[in-house]
Protein backbone atom coordinates (compact mmCIF):
# COMPACT_ATOMS: atom_id res chain seq x y z
CA UNK A 1 0.00 0.00 0.00
CA UNK A 2 2.88 2.21 0.91
CA UNK A 3 4.28 1.56 -2.54
CA UNK A 4 1.08 2.56 -4.32
CA UNK A 5 0.86 5.75 -2.29
CA UNK A 6 4.46 6.48 -3.31
CA UNK A 7 3.50 6.21 -6.98
CA UNK A 8 0.41 8.34 -6.48
CA UNK A 9 2.36 11.06 -4.73
CA UNK A 10 5.20 11.01 -7.25
CA UNK A 11 2.94 11.19 -10.28
CA UNK A 12 0.91 14.01 -8.79
CA UNK A 13 4.06 15.88 -7.90
CA UNK A 14 5.34 15.45 -11.44
CA UNK A 15 2.05 16.57 -12.94
CA UNK A 16 2.13 19.73 -10.92
CA UNK A 17 5.79 20.55 -11.51
CA UNK A 18 5.97 19.68 -15.18
CA UNK A 19 3.68 21.30 -17.71
CA UNK A 20 1.47 23.01 -15.24
CA UNK A 21 -0.49 19.93 -14.24
CA UNK A 22 -3.96 20.60 -13.01
CA UNK A 23 -3.93 24.11 -14.28
CA UNK A 24 -3.15 23.15 -17.88
CA UNK A 25 -6.03 20.70 -18.22
CA UNK A 26 -8.49 23.19 -16.83
CA UNK A 27 -7.12 25.90 -19.09
CA UNK A 28 -7.50 23.71 -22.14
CA UNK A 29 -11.07 22.95 -21.14
CA UNK A 30 -11.81 26.64 -20.80
CA UNK A 31 -10.30 27.42 -24.19
CA UNK A 32 -12.21 24.67 -25.96
CA UNK A 33 -15.51 25.80 -24.46
CA UNK A 34 -14.71 29.36 -25.45
CA UNK A 35 -14.10 28.28 -29.03
CA UNK A 36 -17.52 26.67 -29.33
CA UNK A 37 -19.66 29.81 -29.56
CA UNK A 38 -17.35 31.13 -32.26
CA UNK A 39 -18.22 28.08 -34.29
CA UNK A 40 -21.85 27.75 -33.25
CA UNK A 41 -22.92 31.34 -32.80
CA UNK A 42 -23.90 33.20 -29.63
CA UNK A 43 -27.51 32.01 -29.62
CA UNK A 44 -28.03 31.48 -25.89
CA UNK A 45 -30.94 29.13 -26.24
CA UNK A 46 -28.98 26.88 -28.58
CA UNK A 47 -25.90 26.97 -26.38
CA UNK A 48 -27.96 26.05 -23.36
CA UNK A 49 -29.51 23.16 -25.21
CA UNK A 50 -26.22 21.67 -26.40
CA UNK A 51 -24.21 22.91 -23.41
CA UNK A 52 -23.89 19.57 -21.64
CA UNK A 53 -22.75 17.96 -24.89
CA UNK A 54 -20.09 20.62 -25.42
CA UNK A 55 -18.85 20.29 -21.87
CA UNK A 56 -18.62 16.54 -22.15
CA UNK A 57 -16.76 16.70 -25.46
CA UNK A 58 -14.38 19.25 -24.01
CA UNK A 59 -13.75 17.03 -21.00
CA UNK A 60 -13.16 14.07 -23.29
CA UNK A 61 -10.58 15.91 -25.38
CA UNK A 62 -8.84 17.40 -22.37
CA UNK A 63 -8.53 13.96 -20.72
CA UNK A 64 -7.24 12.45 -23.91
CA UNK A 65 -4.50 14.95 -24.54
CA UNK A 66 -2.96 14.51 -21.13
CA UNK A 67 -2.91 10.72 -21.43
CA UNK A 68 -0.16 10.89 -23.99
CA UNK A 69 2.55 11.30 -21.40
CA UNK A 70 1.19 8.83 -18.89
CA UNK A 71 3.58 6.05 -19.79
CA UNK A 72 5.78 7.74 -22.34
CA UNK A 73 8.00 9.65 -19.92
CA UNK A 74 8.45 6.62 -17.69
CA UNK A 75 9.31 4.53 -20.72
CA UNK A 76 11.80 7.04 -22.03
CA UNK A 77 13.83 7.39 -18.85
CA UNK A 78 13.80 3.72 -17.86
CA UNK A 79 11.38 4.08 -14.94
CA UNK A 80 8.88 1.75 -16.54
CA UNK A 81 11.38 -1.11 -16.38
CA UNK A 82 11.74 -0.62 -12.65
CA UNK A 83 8.02 -0.18 -12.10
CA UNK A 84 7.60 -3.61 -13.63
CA UNK A 85 10.01 -5.06 -11.07
CA UNK A 86 8.16 -3.89 -8.01
CA UNK A 87 6.57 -6.11 -5.42
CA UNK A 88 3.08 -4.83 -6.21
CA UNK A 89 1.23 -6.32 -9.18
CA UNK A 90 1.71 -4.14 -12.23
CA UNK A 91 -2.09 -3.76 -12.53
CA UNK A 92 -2.17 -1.89 -9.22
CA UNK A 93 0.83 0.22 -10.16
CA UNK A 94 -0.87 1.19 -13.39
CA UNK A 95 -4.14 1.90 -11.57
CA UNK A 96 -2.29 4.16 -9.14
CA UNK A 97 -0.85 6.12 -12.07
CA UNK A 98 -4.32 6.39 -13.60
CA UNK A 99 -5.72 7.66 -10.32
CA UNK A 100 -2.99 10.29 -10.15
CA UNK A 101 -3.84 11.28 -13.71
CA UNK A 102 -7.52 11.66 -12.90
CA UNK A 103 -6.83 13.68 -9.78
CA UNK A 104 -4.64 16.09 -11.72
CA UNK A 105 -6.60 16.22 -14.98
CA UNK A 106 -10.14 14.93 -14.50
CA UNK A 107 -10.92 16.45 -11.16
CA UNK A 108 -9.98 20.02 -12.17
CA UNK A 109 -12.36 19.65 -15.11
CA UNK A 110 -15.14 18.71 -12.74
CA UNK A 111 -14.36 21.70 -10.57
CA UNK A 112 -14.46 24.34 -13.28
CA UNK A 113 -17.31 22.75 -15.24
CA UNK A 114 -20.01 24.70 -13.34
CA UNK A 115 -18.28 27.96 -14.21
CA UNK A 116 -18.15 27.00 -17.87
CA UNK A 117 -21.76 25.88 -17.68
CA UNK A 118 -22.65 29.42 -16.68
CA UNK A 119 -20.91 30.70 -19.80
CA UNK A 120 -23.08 28.37 -21.85
CA UNK A 121 -26.24 29.61 -20.19
CA UNK A 122 -27.06 26.31 -18.54
CA UNK A 123 -29.61 26.47 -15.72
CA UNK A 124 -28.05 27.27 -12.36
CA UNK A 125 -29.78 24.45 -10.54
CA UNK A 126 -28.46 21.95 -13.05
CA UNK A 127 -24.80 22.93 -12.76
CA UNK A 128 -24.25 20.77 -9.71
CA UNK A 129 -25.78 17.75 -11.39
CA UNK A 130 -23.70 18.40 -14.48
CA UNK A 131 -20.52 18.43 -12.42
CA UNK A 132 -21.68 15.22 -10.77
CA UNK A 133 -22.05 13.46 -14.11
CA UNK A 134 -18.56 14.59 -15.05
CA UNK A 135 -17.23 13.38 -11.70
CA UNK A 136 -18.79 9.97 -12.30
CA UNK A 137 -17.74 9.73 -15.94
CA UNK A 138 -14.24 11.22 -16.19
CA UNK A 139 -12.68 8.30 -14.29
CA UNK A 140 -14.01 6.05 -17.06
CA UNK A 141 -12.34 8.29 -19.63
CA UNK A 142 -9.02 8.09 -17.80
CA UNK A 143 -9.13 4.34 -17.23
CA UNK A 144 -10.20 3.53 -20.77
CA UNK A 145 -7.58 5.95 -22.03
CA UNK A 146 -5.04 3.99 -20.03
CA UNK A 147 -5.40 1.16 -22.53
CA UNK A 148 -4.65 3.43 -25.46
CA UNK A 149 -1.72 4.99 -23.63
CA UNK A 150 -0.19 1.58 -22.92
CA UNK A 151 -0.69 0.39 -26.50
CA UNK A 152 0.78 3.53 -28.03
CA UNK A 153 3.84 3.56 -25.77
CA UNK A 154 4.57 -0.04 -26.68
CA UNK A 155 4.58 1.01 -30.30
CA UNK A 156 6.39 4.26 -29.62
CA UNK A 157 3.70 6.37 -31.20
CA UNK A 158 1.95 9.37 -29.79
CA UNK A 159 -1.22 11.24 -29.39
CA UNK A 160 -3.12 10.63 -32.59
CA UNK A 161 -2.86 6.87 -32.36
CA UNK A 162 -4.02 7.07 -28.77
CA UNK A 163 -7.08 9.10 -29.73
CA UNK A 164 -7.92 6.74 -32.60
CA UNK A 165 -7.79 3.76 -30.28
CA UNK A 166 -9.56 5.26 -27.31
CA UNK A 167 -12.37 7.40 -28.70
CA UNK A 168 -14.60 4.60 -30.02
CA UNK A 169 -14.35 2.87 -26.67
CA UNK A 170 -15.56 5.99 -24.88
CA UNK A 171 -18.80 6.23 -26.88
CA UNK A 172 -20.93 4.63 -24.12
CA UNK A 173 -19.51 6.99 -21.50
CA UNK A 174 -20.25 9.98 -23.68
CA UNK A 175 -23.79 8.80 -24.43
CA UNK A 176 -24.75 8.20 -20.83
CA UNK A 177 -22.84 11.17 -19.46
CA UNK A 178 -24.63 13.64 -21.70
CA UNK A 179 -27.95 11.86 -21.24
CA UNK A 180 -27.65 12.10 -17.46
CA UNK A 181 -26.68 15.77 -17.69
CA UNK A 182 -29.58 16.53 -20.01
CA UNK A 183 -31.94 14.67 -17.74
CA UNK A 184 -30.87 16.83 -14.84
CA UNK A 185 -31.50 19.99 -16.84
CA UNK A 186 -34.63 19.25 -18.79
CA UNK A 187 -36.12 16.64 -16.49
CA UNK A 188 -37.95 15.00 -19.37
CA UNK A 189 -36.16 11.72 -18.83
CA UNK A 190 -35.22 10.36 -15.42
CA UNK A 191 -31.73 11.11 -14.15
CA UNK A 192 -31.36 7.86 -12.21
CA UNK A 193 -31.00 5.17 -14.87
CA UNK A 194 -28.55 7.07 -17.05
CA UNK A 195 -26.46 8.10 -14.05
CA UNK A 196 -26.39 4.58 -12.65
CA UNK A 197 -25.23 3.16 -15.95
CA UNK A 198 -22.57 5.88 -16.11
CA UNK A 199 -21.28 4.85 -12.70
CA UNK A 200 -21.35 1.20 -13.75
CA UNK A 201 -19.28 2.05 -16.84
CA UNK A 202 -16.73 3.81 -14.67
CA UNK A 203 -16.48 0.89 -12.26
CA UNK A 204 -16.14 -1.52 -15.16
CA UNK A 205 -13.36 0.52 -16.71
CA UNK A 206 -11.59 0.67 -13.34
CA UNK A 207 -11.16 -3.08 -13.69
CA UNK A 208 -10.76 -3.54 -17.44
CA UNK A 209 -8.42 -0.59 -17.94
CA UNK A 210 -5.54 -1.65 -15.69
CA UNK A 211 -5.79 -5.29 -16.77
CA UNK A 212 -5.67 -4.46 -20.49
CA UNK A 213 -3.00 -1.78 -19.99
CA UNK A 214 -0.78 -4.17 -18.04
CA UNK A 215 -1.13 -6.80 -20.75
CA UNK A 216 -0.25 -4.18 -23.35
CA UNK A 217 2.86 -3.11 -21.42
CA UNK A 218 4.10 -6.62 -20.70
CA UNK A 219 3.45 -8.00 -24.16
CA UNK A 220 4.41 -4.90 -26.00
CA UNK A 221 7.66 -4.00 -24.33
CA UNK A 222 9.49 -7.27 -24.02
Amino acid at each position, binding site marked *: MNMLVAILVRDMRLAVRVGGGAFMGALFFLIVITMMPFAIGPDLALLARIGPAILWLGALLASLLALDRLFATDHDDGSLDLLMMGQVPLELTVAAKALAHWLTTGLPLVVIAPLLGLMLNIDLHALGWLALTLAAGTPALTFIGL*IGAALSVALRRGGLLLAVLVLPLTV*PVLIFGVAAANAAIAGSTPFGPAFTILCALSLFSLV*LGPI*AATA*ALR*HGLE
Partner: protein
Amino acid sequence: MAVIDLANPTRFLRIVDRVLPWLIAATVVLFAVGLYRALNAPDDYQQGATVKIMFLHVPAAWLGMFGWALMSIAALGTLVWRHPLADVAGKAAAPIGAAFTFICLVTGSLWGRPTWGTYWVWDARLTSTLVLLLLYLGVLALYWTAEEPGRGARAAAILSLVGAVNLPIIKFSVDWWNTLHQPASVFRLSGSTIDPSLLTPLLIMALAFTFLFVTLHLAVMRNEILRRRVRSMRLMQAQEVRA
Protein backbone atom coordinates in the same frame (compact mmCIF):
# COMPACT_ATOMS: atom_id res chain seq x y z
CA MET B 1 17.75 -21.02 -36.75
CA ALA B 2 14.69 -19.22 -37.94
CA VAL B 3 13.83 -22.16 -40.19
CA ILE B 4 12.50 -24.07 -37.22
CA ASP B 5 10.10 -21.23 -36.49
CA LEU B 6 8.64 -21.52 -39.96
CA ALA B 7 7.96 -25.24 -39.90
CA ASN B 8 4.38 -24.92 -38.80
CA PRO B 9 3.49 -22.17 -41.26
CA THR B 10 5.09 -24.23 -44.00
CA ARG B 11 2.68 -27.05 -43.38
CA PHE B 12 -0.10 -24.49 -43.31
CA LEU B 13 0.98 -23.04 -46.65
CA ARG B 14 0.93 -26.45 -48.22
CA ILE B 15 -2.59 -27.09 -46.97
CA VAL B 16 -3.75 -23.69 -48.18
CA ASP B 17 -2.30 -24.24 -51.63
CA ARG B 18 -4.30 -27.43 -51.93
CA VAL B 19 -7.55 -26.20 -50.46
CA LEU B 20 -7.78 -22.72 -51.92
CA PRO B 21 -8.84 -23.64 -55.48
CA TRP B 22 -11.76 -25.66 -54.09
CA LEU B 23 -12.81 -22.82 -51.84
CA ILE B 24 -12.70 -20.36 -54.71
CA ALA B 25 -14.86 -22.68 -56.80
CA ALA B 26 -17.34 -23.14 -53.97
CA THR B 27 -17.53 -19.38 -53.44
CA VAL B 28 -18.22 -18.71 -57.09
CA VAL B 29 -20.95 -21.35 -57.20
CA LEU B 30 -22.60 -20.08 -54.04
CA PHE B 31 -22.58 -16.52 -55.30
CA ALA B 32 -24.03 -17.60 -58.63
CA VAL B 33 -26.86 -19.49 -56.97
CA GLY B 34 -27.39 -16.82 -54.34
CA LEU B 35 -27.49 -13.90 -56.75
CA TYR B 36 -29.85 -15.76 -59.05
CA ARG B 37 -32.23 -16.49 -56.19
CA ALA B 38 -31.86 -12.99 -54.83
CA LEU B 39 -32.62 -11.27 -58.09
CA ASN B 40 -35.65 -13.48 -58.62
CA ALA B 41 -37.05 -12.98 -55.16
CA PRO B 42 -40.29 -11.00 -54.93
CA ASP B 43 -40.11 -7.23 -54.47
CA ASP B 44 -41.15 -5.71 -51.18
CA TYR B 45 -44.55 -4.04 -51.43
CA GLN B 46 -43.24 -0.98 -49.68
CA GLN B 47 -39.68 -0.59 -50.85
CA GLY B 48 -39.82 -2.13 -54.28
CA ALA B 49 -36.70 -3.59 -55.71
CA THR B 50 -34.37 -1.70 -53.40
CA VAL B 51 -35.04 -4.28 -50.69
CA LYS B 52 -32.69 -6.51 -52.64
CA ILE B 53 -29.75 -4.51 -51.30
CA MET B 54 -30.56 -6.39 -48.13
CA PHE B 55 -28.94 -9.46 -49.67
CA LEU B 56 -25.65 -7.63 -49.63
CA HIS B 57 -26.17 -5.51 -46.55
CA VAL B 58 -27.24 -8.12 -44.01
CA PRO B 59 -24.56 -10.72 -44.78
CA ALA B 60 -21.95 -7.94 -44.80
CA ALA B 61 -23.10 -6.95 -41.33
CA TRP B 62 -22.85 -10.51 -40.08
CA LEU B 63 -19.39 -10.93 -41.53
CA GLY B 64 -18.20 -7.68 -40.07
CA MET B 65 -18.97 -9.11 -36.67
CA PHE B 66 -17.64 -12.53 -37.65
CA GLY B 67 -14.35 -10.86 -38.53
CA TRP B 68 -14.05 -9.37 -35.06
CA ALA B 69 -14.91 -12.71 -33.44
CA LEU B 70 -12.19 -14.32 -35.54
CA MET B 71 -9.72 -11.64 -34.47
CA SER B 72 -10.61 -12.23 -30.83
CA ILE B 73 -10.04 -15.96 -31.06
CA ALA B 74 -6.75 -15.35 -32.86
CA ALA B 75 -5.90 -12.87 -30.09
CA LEU B 76 -6.19 -15.63 -27.51
CA GLY B 77 -3.88 -17.75 -29.62
CA THR B 78 -1.36 -14.92 -29.76
CA LEU B 79 -1.39 -13.89 -26.13
CA VAL B 80 -1.91 -17.19 -24.37
CA TRP B 81 -0.25 -19.78 -26.58
CA ARG B 82 2.05 -17.56 -28.63
CA HIS B 83 1.13 -19.55 -31.70
CA PRO B 84 2.80 -17.96 -34.73
CA LEU B 85 -0.16 -18.65 -36.99
CA ALA B 86 -2.44 -16.83 -34.57
CA ASP B 87 -0.59 -13.56 -35.23
CA VAL B 88 -1.05 -14.03 -38.95
CA ALA B 89 -4.70 -15.08 -38.64
CA GLY B 90 -5.57 -11.98 -36.65
CA LYS B 91 -3.70 -9.67 -38.96
CA ALA B 92 -5.41 -11.18 -42.00
CA ALA B 93 -8.89 -10.99 -40.52
CA ALA B 94 -8.72 -7.30 -39.70
CA PRO B 95 -8.76 -5.71 -43.16
CA ILE B 96 -11.30 -8.21 -44.48
CA GLY B 97 -13.65 -7.63 -41.57
CA ALA B 98 -13.19 -3.88 -41.97
CA ALA B 99 -14.00 -4.13 -45.67
CA PHE B 100 -17.22 -6.03 -45.00
CA THR B 101 -18.18 -3.50 -42.35
CA PHE B 102 -17.58 -0.74 -44.84
CA ILE B 103 -19.71 -2.54 -47.44
CA CYS B 104 -22.42 -2.83 -44.82
CA LEU B 105 -22.32 0.92 -44.25
CA VAL B 106 -22.34 1.80 -47.94
CA THR B 107 -25.15 -0.61 -48.80
CA GLY B 108 -27.07 0.54 -45.77
CA SER B 109 -26.73 4.13 -46.87
CA LEU B 110 -27.84 3.34 -50.43
CA TRP B 111 -30.72 1.25 -49.16
CA GLY B 112 -32.01 3.98 -46.92
CA ARG B 113 -31.58 6.85 -49.35
CA PRO B 114 -34.93 6.48 -51.12
CA THR B 115 -36.81 6.37 -47.83
CA TRP B 116 -34.80 8.86 -45.81
CA GLY B 117 -34.06 11.35 -48.54
CA THR B 118 -30.47 11.59 -47.38
CA TYR B 119 -27.48 9.29 -47.60
CA TRP B 120 -26.98 9.08 -43.87
CA VAL B 121 -29.09 9.05 -40.75
CA TRP B 122 -27.88 8.29 -37.29
CA ASP B 123 -30.04 5.28 -36.71
CA ALA B 124 -28.97 2.70 -34.17
CA ARG B 125 -27.83 0.00 -36.56
CA LEU B 126 -25.81 2.17 -38.91
CA THR B 127 -24.23 4.05 -36.03
CA SER B 128 -23.17 0.89 -34.21
CA THR B 129 -21.71 -0.37 -37.47
CA LEU B 130 -19.82 2.89 -37.88
CA VAL B 131 -18.33 2.56 -34.41
CA LEU B 132 -17.36 -1.02 -35.28
CA LEU B 133 -15.59 0.31 -38.37
CA LEU B 134 -13.74 2.85 -36.23
CA LEU B 135 -12.60 0.06 -33.92
CA TYR B 136 -11.41 -1.93 -36.92
CA LEU B 137 -9.48 1.09 -38.15
CA GLY B 138 -7.91 1.38 -34.71
CA VAL B 139 -6.67 -2.20 -34.92
CA LEU B 140 -5.39 -1.61 -38.44
CA ALA B 141 -3.62 1.52 -37.20
CA LEU B 142 -1.78 -0.65 -34.68
CA TYR B 143 -0.59 -2.99 -37.40
CA TRP B 144 0.46 -0.10 -39.62
CA THR B 145 2.41 1.80 -37.01
CA ALA B 146 4.23 -1.16 -35.47
CA GLU B 147 7.85 -1.38 -36.50
CA GLU B 148 8.11 -4.99 -35.53
CA PRO B 149 5.34 -7.42 -36.56
CA GLY B 150 5.33 -9.31 -33.28
CA ARG B 151 4.65 -6.19 -31.22
CA GLY B 152 1.96 -5.03 -33.60
CA ALA B 153 0.27 -8.41 -33.43
CA ARG B 154 0.31 -8.49 -29.65
CA ALA B 155 -0.99 -4.92 -29.34
CA ALA B 156 -3.72 -5.64 -31.87
CA ALA B 157 -4.61 -8.82 -30.00
CA ILE B 158 -5.15 -6.89 -26.79
CA LEU B 159 -7.25 -4.27 -28.56
CA SER B 160 -9.29 -7.04 -30.22
CA LEU B 161 -10.13 -8.52 -26.85
CA VAL B 162 -10.88 -5.14 -25.31
CA GLY B 163 -13.10 -4.39 -28.30
CA ALA B 164 -14.85 -7.75 -28.03
CA VAL B 165 -15.73 -6.98 -24.43
CA ASN B 166 -16.83 -3.45 -25.22
CA LEU B 167 -18.83 -4.10 -28.39
CA PRO B 168 -21.95 -5.35 -26.57
CA ILE B 169 -21.74 -2.34 -24.28
CA ILE B 170 -21.36 0.01 -27.24
CA LYS B 171 -24.25 -1.64 -29.08
CA PHE B 172 -26.46 -1.34 -26.01
CA SER B 173 -25.46 2.30 -25.50
CA VAL B 174 -26.08 3.27 -29.11
CA ASP B 175 -29.49 1.55 -29.13
CA TRP B 176 -30.37 3.36 -25.93
CA TRP B 177 -29.15 6.67 -27.33
CA ASN B 178 -31.16 6.15 -30.46
CA THR B 179 -34.44 5.50 -28.65
CA LEU B 180 -33.74 8.56 -26.55
CA HIS B 181 -33.51 10.84 -29.54
CA GLN B 182 -35.86 9.14 -31.98
CA PRO B 183 -38.83 7.75 -30.12
CA ALA B 184 -40.51 6.45 -33.27
CA SER B 185 -38.42 4.20 -35.49
CA VAL B 186 -39.61 5.07 -38.89
CA PHE B 187 -37.60 2.67 -40.92
CA ARG B 188 -35.69 -0.35 -39.77
CA LEU B 189 -32.91 -1.36 -42.07
CA SER B 190 -33.48 -5.04 -41.65
CA GLY B 191 -36.90 -4.58 -43.12
CA SER B 192 -39.99 -5.90 -41.43
CA THR B 193 -40.07 -9.61 -40.53
CA ILE B 194 -38.31 -11.47 -43.24
CA ASP B 195 -40.61 -13.41 -45.48
CA PRO B 196 -39.62 -17.04 -46.11
CA SER B 197 -39.28 -16.39 -49.79
CA LEU B 198 -36.57 -13.90 -48.92
CA LEU B 199 -35.03 -16.02 -46.21
CA THR B 200 -33.56 -18.77 -48.36
CA PRO B 201 -31.77 -16.45 -50.78
CA LEU B 202 -30.53 -14.49 -47.78
CA LEU B 203 -29.05 -17.57 -46.18
CA ILE B 204 -27.46 -18.67 -49.43
CA MET B 205 -25.92 -15.22 -49.86
CA ALA B 206 -24.74 -15.30 -46.26
CA LEU B 207 -23.08 -18.65 -46.90
CA ALA B 208 -21.54 -17.31 -50.09
CA PHE B 209 -20.17 -14.29 -48.23
CA THR B 210 -18.79 -16.54 -45.51
CA PHE B 211 -16.98 -18.66 -48.05
CA LEU B 212 -15.66 -15.47 -49.61
CA PHE B 213 -14.38 -14.36 -46.21
CA VAL B 214 -12.64 -17.64 -45.52
CA THR B 215 -11.12 -17.77 -49.01
CA LEU B 216 -9.82 -14.24 -48.75
CA HIS B 217 -8.64 -14.86 -45.21
CA LEU B 218 -6.54 -17.87 -46.16
CA ALA B 219 -5.12 -16.04 -49.16
CA VAL B 220 -4.19 -13.03 -47.03
CA MET B 221 -2.65 -15.30 -44.40
CA ARG B 222 -0.53 -16.91 -47.06
CA ASN B 223 0.65 -13.50 -48.25
CA GLU B 224 1.47 -12.43 -44.71
CA ILE B 225 3.49 -15.58 -44.04
CA LEU B 226 5.45 -15.02 -47.24
CA ARG B 227 5.97 -11.38 -46.30
CA ARG B 228 7.37 -12.42 -42.93
CA ARG B 229 9.69 -14.88 -44.60
CA VAL B 230 11.09 -12.14 -46.77
CA ARG B 231 11.62 -10.05 -43.66
CA SER B 232 13.37 -12.91 -41.84
CA MET B 233 15.62 -13.52 -44.80
CA ARG B 234 16.53 -9.85 -44.92
CA LEU B 235 17.35 -9.90 -41.22
CA MET B 236 19.51 -12.98 -41.64
CA GLN B 237 21.29 -11.30 -44.51
CA ALA B 238 21.99 -8.26 -42.37
CA GLN B 239 23.35 -10.44 -39.58
CA GLU B 240 25.68 -12.29 -41.90
CA VAL B 241 27.16 -9.05 -43.13
CA ARG B 242 27.85 -7.98 -39.57
CA ALA B 243 29.49 -11.25 -38.61
